[in-house]
């Protein structure tokens, strides 16, 4: 789903350049949003917890650009990026982080449970592994309805060791479902290195053959690579070729959640991965490939303006009305369990 807006400055770009600009817009917007979210958490405005995708933006970006508007995204508590990448307005996401009535879930979900069905963002799930089987269900429904929709399901490296992963991958293959499983391997669970608790080196890719799937490992910090692998896998799913499992190697710049400084990670590992930062690197590549810097600056300025506006809107929004706490347990809009 291209986010490219054709303007005066970008009118003459090739379609490939448009796509790459769209990818850049995605990573820049996510970066700007996540940096702000961190700041607001430290200010005490984001309550509870918050899991950022700083450093991991390219994965959401590549898929965000490659997906069709009616495809389905299933993601985790680390889901700001994936929700935004589908076009969910920043103000609704920021409002949800701040627990405001203006949030996409009216303040009931919070940072870990962003959902915008209208944008194909089918929910952020906070129980490790739970959404893999659920993504299958959406894919099954698309298959039955013949809609051509594809479900894309994002999860972390640590998630590959829970039972639901196994059950979901097997069923996806047996039913030949139009689903793409994307493991964001950022090398860590919360604080434990994935290598310390996993029987194989590549937690997702080394399991692919157990489900009759191809082993795919890609550079999750490269927007071009992510866009390509996403396009291929989505196309395969859409055309009846069944599921894929992609392991995208990446790294989070910060800690697992909240104010975690991530000190359990070796300094040289952090330093090495910071050199692979998808945002400046992609910017440099686009410039090297001849894209006009002013176009990139426009994108950056717009992203920051959007984040500012979303922040202002969220700060200004009222908290949910207490009565709202009693709504939407049931389809009738209410919460009564008795007659």
């Amino acid at each position, binding site marked *: 789903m291209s986010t490219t807006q054709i303007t005066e400055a970008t009118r003459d770009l090739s379609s490939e350049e448009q796509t790459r600009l769209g990818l850049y817009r995605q990573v820049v917007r996510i970066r700007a949003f996540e940096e702000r979210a961190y700041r607001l958490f430290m200010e005490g405005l984001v309550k509870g917890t918050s899991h950022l995708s700083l450093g991991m933006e390219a994965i959401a970006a590549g898929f965000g650009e490659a997906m069709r508007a009616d495809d389905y995204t299933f993601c985790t508590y680390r889901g700001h990026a994936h929700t935004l990448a589908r076009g969910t307005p920043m103000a609704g996401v920021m409002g949800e982080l701040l627990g405001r009535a203006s949030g996409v879930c009216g303040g009931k*979900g919070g940072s870990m449970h962003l959902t915008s069905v209208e944008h194909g963002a*089918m*929910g952020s799930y906070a129980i490790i592994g*739970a959404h893999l089987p659920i993504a299958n269900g959406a894919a099954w429904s698309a298959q039955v309805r013949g809609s051509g*929709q594809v479900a894309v399901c994002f999860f972390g490296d640590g998630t590959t060791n829970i039972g639901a992963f196994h059950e979901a991958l097997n069923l996806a293959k047996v039913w030949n479902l139009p689903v793409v499983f994307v493991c964001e391997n950022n090398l860590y669970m919360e604080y434990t290195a994935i290598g310390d608790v996993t029987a194989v080196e590549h937690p997702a890719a080394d399991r692919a053959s157990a489900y009759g799937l191809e082993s795919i490992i890609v550079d999750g910090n490269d927007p071009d690579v992510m866009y390509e692998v996403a396009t291929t896998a989505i196309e395969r799913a859409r055309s009846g070729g069944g599921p894929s499992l992609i392991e995208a190697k990446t790294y989070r710049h910060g800690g697992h959640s909240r104010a975690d400084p991530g000190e359990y990670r070796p300094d040289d590992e952090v330093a090495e991965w910071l050199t692979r930062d998808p945002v400046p690197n992609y910017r440099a590549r686009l410039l090297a490939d001849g894209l006009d810097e002013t176009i990139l600056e426009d994108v950056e300025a717009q992203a920051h303006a959007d984040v500012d506006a979303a922040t202002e809107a969220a700060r200004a929004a009222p908290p949910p009305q207490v009565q709202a706490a009693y709504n*939407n*347990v049931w389809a009738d809009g209410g919460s009564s369990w*008795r007659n």
Partner: protein
Amino acid sequence: MAELITYRDAVARGLAQELRRDPTVHFIGEDVAAAGGVFKATKGLLEEFGPERVRDTPISEEAILGAAMGAAMTGLRPVAEIMFSDFLATCWDLVAVEIPKTRYMTDGQVSLPLVIRTANGGGLRFGAQHSQAVENWAMSIPGLKVVAPSNPRDVIGLLAAAIRDPDPVVFFEQKSLYPTKGEVPDGEIIDELGVASTVRPGRDVTIVALASMVPRAVAAAEELDGLGISAEVIDLRCLVPLDTTTVIESVKRTSRLVTVEENPRLCGWGAEIVSIVGEECFWHLDGPLTRVTTPHIPLPSSDALEDEFLPSVSRIVEAAQKVLL
């Protein structure tokens, strides 16, 4: 016209009624299609509706309920079988943490019109891991509707209501009832969820029962009649929504309550009924609030021991006599 059919066959008939009516209804589970279910309660459905709508799965309870949930979010009305209700434990995260909370967490963006059918309860000498009555597990989870029919007619009417309901429903079929028979009218049957049925009117004591406990409560009421005690028997039919009106009105008349449940002692739905009555019609009560339950013990396999545990007619009779002392 009416027909005498088994509870088991009523399940197949109820499913067929809804599969015929609504093409978005799909049914999945382990051994449900080609084999017609391990309890033979879904025989003939594959033949009539084909392998796309009636589908066998691997032994992957989380994958089964995940498939149902994701499909329900996106336009289907899935019915998923979890073969024995004990196995709900292997997919409890889906049942208790994903399915019931998603509508609320998304502030109503997501609807989950799905049904989880499962064979519940003891009496078949299957031992502690295939005999549990766990309808209280489901009742304790906000966001789930909970249904447990006691007879073939209700199986059809309540299953239809569950499938048409826009919210997730856990549908408990009592496995000891599968071979029992009952009159079922011809044509479509459709009930409303949350309506209890007063299966036997009475004056002196209200006996509230569910599923397999309903026939036992009725038998006890008949015995009590002989002892000069007039017992009213209520078949709850649903735990959520709960027909508190029928229960409370009855207790207001009889002033005495006995609940009869197959759940083990602690935190069963009987405790919930007692608590509602104890708070809302306390001043009408003339005797202690009493529950008949399975003891708080894993169910033993041996027939001699299992029969000791499941609430019997005589234990119900005794409880009713006690509250009338």
